[in-house]
């Protein structure tokens, strides 16, 4: 059994509260990502699961076993989990084979078993021909795969990954993403993944826990949290968004500073904030839609990024790259909104979006 149950866990270092009241269950075989900006507490949570930190209050179970909590504390070496570190932590004084074999050597497995398992896991990470090499002869990506192999060789039920890809360059990162996901699917192990890169989180996870300042803002599948964010922070953290102020009344939201009136069938009334994702705006040179004027444009290759002005308000529009030359600053265009989100305007926007480290 390899679910992870976290009950009422808080963590403080001295007087600063890092995590408050974390209460979740990660299911067996799930790929769970702890996502959030730097300093939000996600790494701390991971380290508590691993056993490198102790919760200030609360309990943590791996499967049915209580590993942290009350008077119990199971040290890391006895928890039977695998972990991949951000800095790879590949030992420079051992070659790849011995690095990977280490967990088995510690467990005093016999030679044949070790050889077999190491060979198998090296094959999974595509490093079979590098077994005799030393870490200083390997590239970053290769070292990361060694770390992964080492974490998997003892066939743990739970795999923890602490921002494993943030030291790699963009192209490699993408490739590794898929590989990791692939391996997880194949072996069916539970994965807890920590990252601040939302694209990564979205691409790989079954569930994402978005954390800010020690509090879980929202948890759910990638589509859920992307399309149904519960607050402005979540909306802003994932993808791109513009916030506009408006007034909701009688099924209509009037956007401040413009003449725009949007049909609205939701429940919020009064002062609201409307969140518009750039990809939900279609821009044409036609007759239908909200009139706007292009103020700037940027070429992104696969897309084009425009700033348009409606009345006193600025919006961002993302459109196809090949249309780049069609639209120019100063042009009058028409916008159509296919979707938008509405939140109460309780003045908390600024605070929510403030970056805290």
């Amino acid at each position, binding site marked *: 059994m390899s679910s992870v149950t976290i009950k009422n866990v808080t963590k403080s270092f001295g007087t600063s509260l890092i995590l408050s009241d974390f209460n979740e269950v990660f299911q067996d075989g799930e790929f769970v990502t702890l996502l959030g900006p730097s300093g939000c507490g996600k790494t701390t949570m991971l380290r508590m699961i*691993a*056993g*490198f930190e102790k919760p200030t209050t609360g309990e943590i179970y791996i499967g049915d076993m209580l590993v942290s909590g009350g008077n119990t504390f199971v*040290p*890391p*070496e*006895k*928890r*039977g*989990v*695998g*972990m991949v*570190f*951000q*800095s790879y*932590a*590949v*030992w*420079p*004084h051992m070659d790849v084979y011995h690095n990977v074999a*280490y*967990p088995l050597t*510690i*467990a005093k497995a016999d030679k044949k078993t070790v050889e077999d398992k190491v060979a198998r896991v090296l094959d999974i990470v595509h490093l079979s021909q590098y077994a005799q090499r030393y870490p200083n002869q390997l590239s970053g990506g290769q070292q990361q795969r060694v*770390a992964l192999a*080492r*974490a998997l060789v*003892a066939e743990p039920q739970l795999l*923890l990954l602490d921002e494993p890809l943030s*030291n790699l360059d963009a192209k490699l990162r993408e490739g590794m993403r898929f590989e990791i996901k692939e391996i997880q699917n194949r072996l069916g192990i539970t994965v807890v993944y920590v990252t601040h890169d939302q694209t990564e989180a979205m691409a790989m996870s079954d569930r994402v826990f978005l954390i800010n300042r020690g509090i879980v803002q929202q948890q759910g599948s990638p589509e859920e949290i992307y399309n149904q964010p519960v607050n402005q922070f979540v909306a802003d953290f994932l993808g791109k968004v513009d916030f506009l102020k408006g007034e909701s009344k009688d099924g209509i939201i009037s956007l401040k500073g413009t003449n725009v009136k949007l049909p609205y069938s939701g429940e919020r009334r009064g002062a609201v904030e409307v969140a518009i994702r750039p990809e939900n705006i279609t821009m044409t040179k036609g007759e239908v839609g909200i009139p706007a004027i292009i103020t700037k444009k940027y070429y992104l290759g696969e897309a084009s990024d425009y700033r348009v002005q409606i009345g006193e308000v600025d919006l961002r529009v993302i459109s196809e790259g090949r249309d780049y030359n069609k639209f120019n600053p100063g042009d009058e265009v028409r916008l159509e909104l296919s979707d938008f989100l509405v939140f109460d305007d309780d003045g908390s926007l600024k605070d929510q979006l403030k970056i805290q480290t």
Partner: protein
Amino acid sequence: MTSPLMSQTHRRSRGVKIALTFAVALGLLLIFLGVRGTQALSQSNFDDAKGFMLINKAGRLAEEGLKADKPLLAKFDEESLQTLSRSMDRVLSNLWRRVRYAGETLSDYKRTDIARRADMMATLLRETSDDDLKEGVSRATLALDAVILGTNDSGVPAYEWLILKLADSLPQSEAENLRASLQEAKKSGESIVERELKEQSGLLFAEAIGEKRLARYRNGAAGVAGVALEIFNELHRVAPEYNLSDLKALLFDVTKDEEVKENIVNLSAADAFAEVLLSLTPENTSGARLLALSRALYESLQSVHPDLSGMDHNSLILLQADALAEEESQALLEQADMLQDKAWNDYLTPLFSQALDMTAHVSSAQDDLMVSSLQAFVQGESASDIQNNLANELIMARDADTGRLIEDYLAELSSEDAWQTKSSLIAALFAFDAPRIPIAVQRSVESLPKQQRSVLREDLLHGIIDPLAPLPEFAENFLSETDLEREEALLYLHLLSGSGFGKLYGDEVGAGLRLAIRANAPRIRAAQTIAAGGGDRLTQIINSKGKVLALLGALLFIDSLLLAFLMRSSNDWRIDMKWLLILLIVDFMLVFQILPLGYMLYKAFTPQGTFSLQTFERLFSYNMNRSALVNTMVSGLSAMVMGTVIAFPLAWLVGRTNLIGKKFFRHLFVLTYMVPPYVGAMAWLRLLNPNVGSINVILRTLLGLKSAVGPLNIYSMGGMVWVLTTFFYPYAFITISRAMEKMDPSLEEASRISGASPFLTLLKVTLPIMTPSLIAGALLVFVSAASAYGIPSIVGAPGRVHTVTTRIIEYYGRGTQGLNDAIGLSVFLMTLALLILYISDFVLAKKQYITVSGKSTRPNIVDLRTWRIPLTIIVGLFAFLVVLLPFATILTTSLKIDVGKSLMAAGNFTLHQWTNIFSRSETMTSLKNSFIYASVSATVGILVAITMSYLMQRTTIRGRKLPDFLITLGSGSPSVVIALGLIMSMQGRFGVNIYNTAYILIVAYLVKYMMMGMRTVTSAISQIHVSLEESSQVSGASWITTMRKVTGPLIFPSIAAGWFLIFIPCFYELAMTTLLYSNSTKTIGFQLYEYWTFTSQPQASAMAFGILLIVIFINLILNRLTKGEFSI
């Protein structure tokens, strides 16, 4: 087609290349000139360079004062000037002679004591150029000595030797006859002499046994026992029936052994004697009574042996000599020998007189000094009179020599500037004689107004030229008072009135002049070269400053080549300011570090001037050297192992676990690093002294030991290794801690999560990764322990455990052979240190797995759980034992009156030691000296460090690593070796003489400790990203402003830290100061060492604790300045 910019660059680079070529050539020229000048100097027989420079200086000073005379002289006609010149010649000769031989006329010779006279004779003999006279005088001296002593050097009776020598001057046949007579006399005289001898030796023995006190016997009473036994046996042999009963009473008193006393009561006297004498041992004998007994026995023997000639006293004397202590034994044997020789001499006297007559009659014998001296002696003239006559002859010969030389020289002074030369020389020589002029006269001349003085000069000048002309009254008075010759006096007054000051030169110059002039005999040639006018200015300089020129030339040569090489390899032919900075530092290190070491290495291979491996052989063959080598290696290795074994777990506990109070422990362990090692050694002496050491006392009580000694003895190899370990393990501790901190903690975490317990992680991951650092730390401990001086000399030497460093310092004062041994040992130590430096810095550095983590996570703390408290206690005990206890001991010792008693004992507490020490002016002087020298060293050192760090971190200029390499080399050299090298090369051998000054100390400190500032400043600068400075520059600030407003404030804490890191070891330094100090440059460390060795321990302890307080205080300031973030 080349652009204008390119051709400008091309032109400039060509210009630089030309300039460099010129510089190289100039350098070679200077070397050539310098060497030539030095050679010219040595050929002039003027081998005292310092005296040379002083006379030069004196001459030039005199020149200034004499410039006024030129217009004056123009007024006189040719004849008058010639008269003046002749007078000056006369004066010069007299002066020169007086100066040269001050204290060495015949009357002076007669007045000195015998020992000094021998020296004087030797000097006179050496200096004479008349070889015949030399030969004659030395033979005569030898002969006289032989006659006086009774034997010549090889132990042959004097007259025998003399007869043979005399025979040498006789014609063939007569000589043979004489020699034959000698042989016969020897044969026939044997029995007579023997008889004579027996009688005399008997007297000698009686004297010996009567006079020698018991204390002079080796083994006390046992010595006498042997003699007594022998006498008794002899007595028994010649008179078995002799009744010893009246001596029996004496016998009873001899032995303290009750059992023996009981036994002999009923024995016959003879048996009793035998019993007692055979039972004697040193412990159970009353020595004084035994002596009395021996004497009584001897008297008895004499009474049955009235003629004594039947007895062989020689064997008794030998026995006696055997039993006596070394010196006495020697004296006794010598006396016995002398008796023998005297007997022979007495017997051979007639033959000797005969030989002497025969030789005297041979015609040339009159010329033979030896013969005439012997004759005079035989006729009754005293030996000392004869010696005086001989000395007289030598002195006269020497005077004649000098007189000739002076005449030659004066004749050569025919050029226009002859007057100038003569008067400067006279002025210089007068300066030597200055005290002879009455102060009153000097003053009155001084008080004359300028115009009157020039009138006086003219008058005096006239007076010298025309002896009959009237002189000013003032001059007449002076002439009547003085016993100087007239011309001399007048010239002196003339010079006085012109120069305007009472004394022509300061004391130092005058004394130096005296010394310089005295030290050299045929100096005229040198005087000619230097004293203005004889040669042109340029030659003067070249000859007198030859060595300095050669040194500068060598530096210029090397620098130019270096610059050319650097420019070539970076293909940038521009003079860059940074290169000049680099060269400055490189030059300093070349002169003060490479040169001394190189010279020492050279001397090691040429101990006596030619290539030989003797020095190195002696390292291993000579017992003292070999044992020193072995001790050093053993103690170094032991300290290394023990130190590392202690340091690693401590570093791990303090850095990686949840030990209680780790921050405190960490500071405590590092504190030892800041304490003078010799202070620690003193502390441990108090604690582990075999007799009264506190720890020993406690152990004895605890273990119930009865002995008054031990169980632990600090004066042993073990003791020394212990103290070395406690003082040098922090080096390993710091190295290992640093490496541990730098290690990526996730490496250990990965091991934990892979299933390994903390202990297994330590073994399989931490230790292997740390191994290079461990080895580096261990090597550091080894090299520090092997190079240490303070601890071995305080702890090891009294226990006869000598190390290379203590031997080097010991040998240094012991003459040439000693110096050679010291050099050999130094080379050994230096090679060892360099080897380790190489391994540590170049080989190991590459292997160090520097794994710095990307994120600044805190290292994973290992929870010690049940072990937490026990381990804390153990570490605490260790800290107490190694750090606090010694310091506390010093404090308590300094407060005691009687070192042997406890502090708590009544009336033993006092502050007297403290007030005593710190109210002494010499303490304050030493303290002041230490502060000044250390401050200067620290300031210069930190400036160099800043320059170097900046160059290394912020520029890409080639060659910037060179000074760093040299500085590292310096810090890795053992202190004693650096000091020895400096002594040997900085006394003027290479043109630089800073010996006996504060400068040599500062230079030594810099060479050794400059490195300490480098690391802190370098790491500080490296942590400031260059973009900080670049953004300042882009904002419009000049480089200087950037330094001032951006970089400076950021690195200031590290600069301050670096300053103190250099300051502190310089402050309490001991080893180098021991070799380089002079009376006016004593430092506090050396002073303390002296006090400990020669004065009282409590006082020394007070001083030591004072030093400690100062160092701790400074350390606190350091901490405060760097806001505690600085860790050593």
